[in-house]
């Protein structure tokens, strides 16, 4: 196990599928960088497979998913499954975007560690990441 406390936290943030709303994810990427983390933004049109491949290649501590087109319940189980298949249980998995409050427990049950909605302030998600790394 790599001891991460002395290194920079490495975060992969990404879109999944065809959802093109990328204002939020780019802002999150910038804010995480300003908080001293190493951030990799994969861009749009990613698949569960391409996300997990990049997470392995880049040896990241955190994966951040951005959902704004109602696709969160479709892609989350596929990404979690792909992560499990590749033994990535020690990566912190977070998601942000627009979805109904009702779906947050469902997403957490599916395997997302923490869900942030639109209107979250930077401090909240930065503190969460710093305090909840799994490796």
């Amino acid at each position: 196990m790599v001891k991460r406390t002395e290194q920079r936290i490495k975060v992969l943030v990404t879109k999944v599928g065809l959802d093109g709303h990328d204002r939020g994810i780019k802002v999150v990427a910038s804010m995480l960088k300003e908080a001293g983390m190493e951030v990799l933004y994969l861009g749009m049109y990613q698949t569960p497979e391409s996300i997990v491949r990049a997470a392995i290649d880049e040896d990241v501590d955190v994966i951040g998913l951005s959902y704004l087109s109602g696709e969160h319940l479709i892609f989350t189980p596929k990404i979690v499954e792909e992560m499990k298949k590749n033994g990535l249980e020690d990566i912190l998995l977070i998601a942000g975007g627009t979805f109904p409050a009702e779906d947050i427990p469902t997403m957490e049950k599916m395997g997302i560690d923490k869900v942030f909605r639109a209107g979250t302030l930077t401090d909240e998600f930065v503190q969460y990441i710093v305090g909840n790394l799994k490796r």
Partner: protein
Amino acid sequence: MSQTNEAKTEKTHEGDWDAYIKAYYEKPVSFKSWSGYDVKEIYTPDDRSVEDYGKNISDAGTYPFTRGIHANMFRGRLWTKREVVGIGSPADTHARLKYLAEHGGSGLNTIADVTYEMGLDADHPWAVNEVGLTGVNITSIRDMEALTKDIPLDKVSWSLITASTAASVTMAQYVAVAESGGYNLAGLRGSIQNDPIHFRYCGFRPACPLDLSIKLGSDVMEYCTKRLPKWYYTTVNMYDLREQGINASQEVAFGFCIAMCYIDELIRRGLDIDEFAPRFTFYVSCHIDIFEEVAKIRAARRMWARLVKEKYGAKDPKSMQFRFAVHTAGCSLIPQQPLNNIVRVAYEALAAVLGGVQSLHCCSYDEPMCLPTEKAHLQALRTQQILAYETGVTNVADPLGGSYYVENLTDRIEDESLKIMKQVEELGGMEEAIRTEWLDRQFESEAVKRQKELDNGDKLVVGVNIFNTEQEKTTPLGVQRVSEQSAKKQVEDVKELKRSRDKDKLKDAIKRLRDDAGEGKNVIPAMVDTTKAFGTTGELLGTVREVFGYSYDPMETIESPFNW
């Protein structure tokens, strides 16, 4: 029980009321407009030159139309209450249109989903997961028939929201259905968004290469000029640009710069400015700063009039009239304390109406959570109706005209917007600003600025950085889900259509489309014929894409089935 009560009482005495007392002395923390312009304590006659009334302001209905494009504004006709609809299958979307019509909606307005905007058929491997999630997918003429079923196309006014290069296909599909239904094209009223250039900033870059955006966008405009004289064939989308986080002046400036790309191309094709400018429309955002939004709209009207007259030499006053629809700012709404969004939308809609809007979509309160439920959709429509029938804001044209503050802010936004347009010109024009990703950088840095304003408390949003005590676990009027069955059925129907259609007829139509595209002709007539031969969205667009040297499939997953 009694113990708890006692404890509570005691705590109250210790200071629960302090907040109340402190709140009594509250005052605003910032004296800036939403766009960051310093605002004075009071505005007086010194802040604007009244003697320039005729030149800069003038009565509604007269050049430069600062106060409105009609002399009597809403007395002549109310704005069109046009709620955006797009959910699941064409039949599901049709049902919601009918529901809104039954409750007083006055304009049809349907929006494409992500798959359709990307130019993908419902059975495309990237589409099958997402059909109908954010709008409606029209793959074949059958889908357009289902969407328009029983609707008298010669009597209604329909706004088709397809913005990407797929707008060319939407136009062809609508025309094909209208012709098959025996309608005279010259009588059709409505609009198509058809602004592919802006749509590369909304996640559709693979479907919107710049040259193809200008080519197909202009093909739609040119075709409609000749065939659908009552149709508004582009709605330059300033709203989507604003949603990226930019300010009011940037919204106008970038929107106008994009509009000029199309204007220049149409003029290059030999059209006269007065042939097409009267059919240009705009999609404007109304954000939460009421006075600034009204000022922005007034500035945009004046700037458009002058641009079209002075730069392009228009003579017809209709060319100089800035016609616009408003979409209340989706990005101003938040999922925390969701019912408050109803109030935000009402203020934004008020700004739109005070600004003299032609057509209005009010966001439903559940916008930052899901597609609108029927109840939320109806509530948004009711917001418009309260505004139209109860508040009296429809009585007078440009009621804020002559306000020292609003006139000053109008001048300010005009000045700032013109400065930005000048900057774009110096960069080599909008196409160059897009190619060099200058525009991307503007969006990104402004969006970060907006987040920092919230983090620092420079901008306050109730439920985000002030008064944020509640944590709702449910959505008040329920959640809209998209029917998985509908999406599956649509995918199956498309597969069946592709199996059963007359392949020779289709082959001939595709060949003509390919030839027309290759010869630089306007491709819309061939697209109409190919649609009638059951050619699909992906097939029409893919065929044209290949001619222009792009992959048949924007997602580069499937090959053209027509490689003979």
